[in-house]
């Protein structure tokens, strides 16, 4: 597979490049498919299948892509919540692909996850106060009054009243539960946080509050984020660079404003054109690129370019030869045979930015 590791991608939010914090090379995670009485393995789901990128200190890398393309799995493997099937994961230059036991526990203090499904991190039998405080207790960071104060502070930071500390998760609305998960992930002030759809269940005002909080913490504590989201406008706002994933692979990676202004991969274009517009008149009038063709399965990905079965500009070659990962502009990489070939591209359909 001719995918090369991402080459020097300086974050664009500051003039000087900060050191690399997280690096993945040819990262893969496959889930076995078991069938029959004897649970025989009959195949595998290639959820993440050869992914490369770097995240610099204090940078936010956005990760977007189709539902089921492997974003959550990638986030979990990087944090070692799953063991990788193949590839390398480095944190501060140190290989963490197979650390275990005490070293893994120590690592957890620096790397946290905000889970897409709050259920995954919220124990229904614990009060919210103890859920948020648990990492602090577990790592011996705070106890007694200091612990209570810190928990109150964290709840306040995500817009929840400290009065709620004695309630259980089921006593909250969907958006409130999502914020409990965020407070918990922030408790240890980790260096790196994978935010998996952290704002999906929040109204726009609270979304703004949470995103502002994440940005403040980044400024103040120098945090680094991998920000997984379907909200393209919010990703553009928060991310320095954005990676676009399709069926287990990264197909495009660029500084965020550039990606939105000039997406080079046909999948990225289709994605951008489908973003809903906050205006009923424009929404009714606009056009979008509709993807046709069967949605392929990661258990049986198409040969050649994985997008070829749905690509509006695919040629016979695309089903045979896998496109190389090319840097077409400084810091803008893409995997498509025709990425530079603007003529053949379906036009970016202007989705009516106001004004």
């Amino acid at each position, binding site marked *: 597979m001719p995918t090369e590791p991402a080459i020097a991608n300086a974050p664009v939010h500051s003039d000087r490049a900060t050191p690399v914090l997280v690096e993945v090379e040819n990262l893969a995670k496959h889930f076995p498919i078991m069938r029959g009485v004897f649970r025989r393995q009959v195949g595998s789901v290639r959820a993440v299948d050869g992914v490369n990128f770097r995240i610099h200190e204090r940078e936010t890398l956005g990760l977007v892509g189709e539902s089921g393309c492997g974003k959550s799995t990638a986030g979990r493997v990087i944090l070692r919540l799953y063991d990788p099937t193949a590839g390398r994961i480095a944190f501060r230059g140190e290989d963490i692909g197979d650390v275990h036991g005490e070293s893994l526990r120590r690592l957890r203090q620096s790397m946290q996850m905000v889970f897409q499904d709050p259920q995954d991190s919220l124990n229904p039998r614990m009060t919210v106060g103890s859920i948020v405080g648990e990492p602090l207790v577990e790592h011996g960071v705070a106890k007694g009054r200091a612990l209570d104060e810190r928990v109150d502070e964290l709840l306040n930071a995500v817009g929840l009243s400290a009065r709620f500390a004695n309630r259980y998760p089921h006593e909250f609305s969907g958006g409130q539960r999502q914020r409990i998960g965020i407070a918990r992930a922030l408790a240890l002030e980790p260096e790196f946080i994978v935010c998996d759809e952290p704002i999906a269940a929040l109204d726009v005002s609270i979304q703004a509050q949470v995103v502002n909080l994440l940005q403040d913490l980044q400024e103040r504590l120098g945090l680094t984020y991998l920000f997984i989201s379907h909200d393209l406008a919010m990703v553009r706002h928060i991310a320095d660079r954005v990676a676009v994933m399709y069926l287990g692979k990264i197909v495009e990676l660029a500084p965020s404003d550039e990606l939105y202004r000039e997406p080079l991969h046909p999948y990225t274009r289709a994605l951008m054109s489908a973003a*809903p517009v906050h205006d009923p008149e424009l929404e009714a009038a606009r056009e979008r690129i509709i993807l046709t063709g069967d949605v392929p399965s990661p258990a049986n990905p198409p040969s050649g370019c994985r997008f070829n079965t749905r690509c509006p500009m695919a040629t016979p070659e695309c089903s045979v030869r896998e496109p190389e990962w090319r840097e077409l502009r400084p810091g803008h990489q893409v995997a498509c045979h025709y990425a530079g070939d603007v003529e053949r591209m379906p036009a970016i359909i202007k989705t009516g930015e106001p004004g």
Partner: protein
Amino acid sequence: MSGATATHPVLAVEDVRTRFHTQEGVVHAVNGIGFELGEGEVLGVVGESGSGKSVTMLSLLRLLPTPPAEIVSGSARLEGEDLMALDADRLREVRGARVGFIFQDPMTSLNPVLTVGYQLTEPLRLHLGMDKAAARERAAQLLDLVGIPEATRRLSDFPHQFSGGMRQRVMIAIALACSPKVLIADEPTTALDVTIQAQILDVVKRLRRELGMSIIWITHDLGVVAGLADRVMVMYGGQVVERADVKSLYARPKHPYTRGLLRTLPSPDAEGETSGRLASIPGHPPSLLQAPASCPFAPRCEHAFDRCQRENPMLQAVGEGHEVACFFDVDRGAPRAD
């Protein structure tokens, strides 16, 4: 479409009040919500997180455990029959068959120890009397409809083997299985990327056109509301604060909360660059530990004046099909005369 509702609503909801008994006291989650849903109409529901959107809809179908929940009042007439007064058996017939419900949290409503295929075929066999083979075939079609690849194989998978967005689509498929008269969708597309979301919205629009399905669509995504809803209802602190057809709501929002909400959208400026901090509505939502005696939004409202602290405004008509619960007239910049 909004015209049709006045004459013959499919679903007419009145004065729903639901509270929770908790250690800290009584939480007044829903305080007198009413609305009508016309045939083939899509009603968008937006509002602050914690404003009672889910609890309202769960109350209609009595899906909340009591206690701690207590439904103090309310009726929900589906083609004349009050759902909130039905006995348990009849209610079970209605749920799934005539009313489809997509829950906000797929993992709390999908059973983790049953295969997705089982959970999809069960309502088909129960409500439509299909045999096993026919139900499986239909289940695979439904999964395919919501864009899940290799649908037939995936019927034997368990929910944890699906991605977040796939679980959500399984929920959607279950809710649509029996072609219900009314679909209540609570944040059904939060975990979907925009292309799959667009595909789901197309499916929903088609069902509404072909089957005359009426839809309640709860969402935080004001873009989705703009493209899908005929009318929109805005909630705050367990009450409806504004209701209007979709175009006037976006063009002429009247309630200070709605206006704040529309202002907080991140929008690229002229050069397409986004920068700086996002606007949010300052202040905190109401605690709900008291029954509202004043406007719930007053403490955060830039226009609040003495009356807002004393009285809770009722919804009143301010234009064709446009209602707002606010004592202040934002167009004139002065208190409303009434």
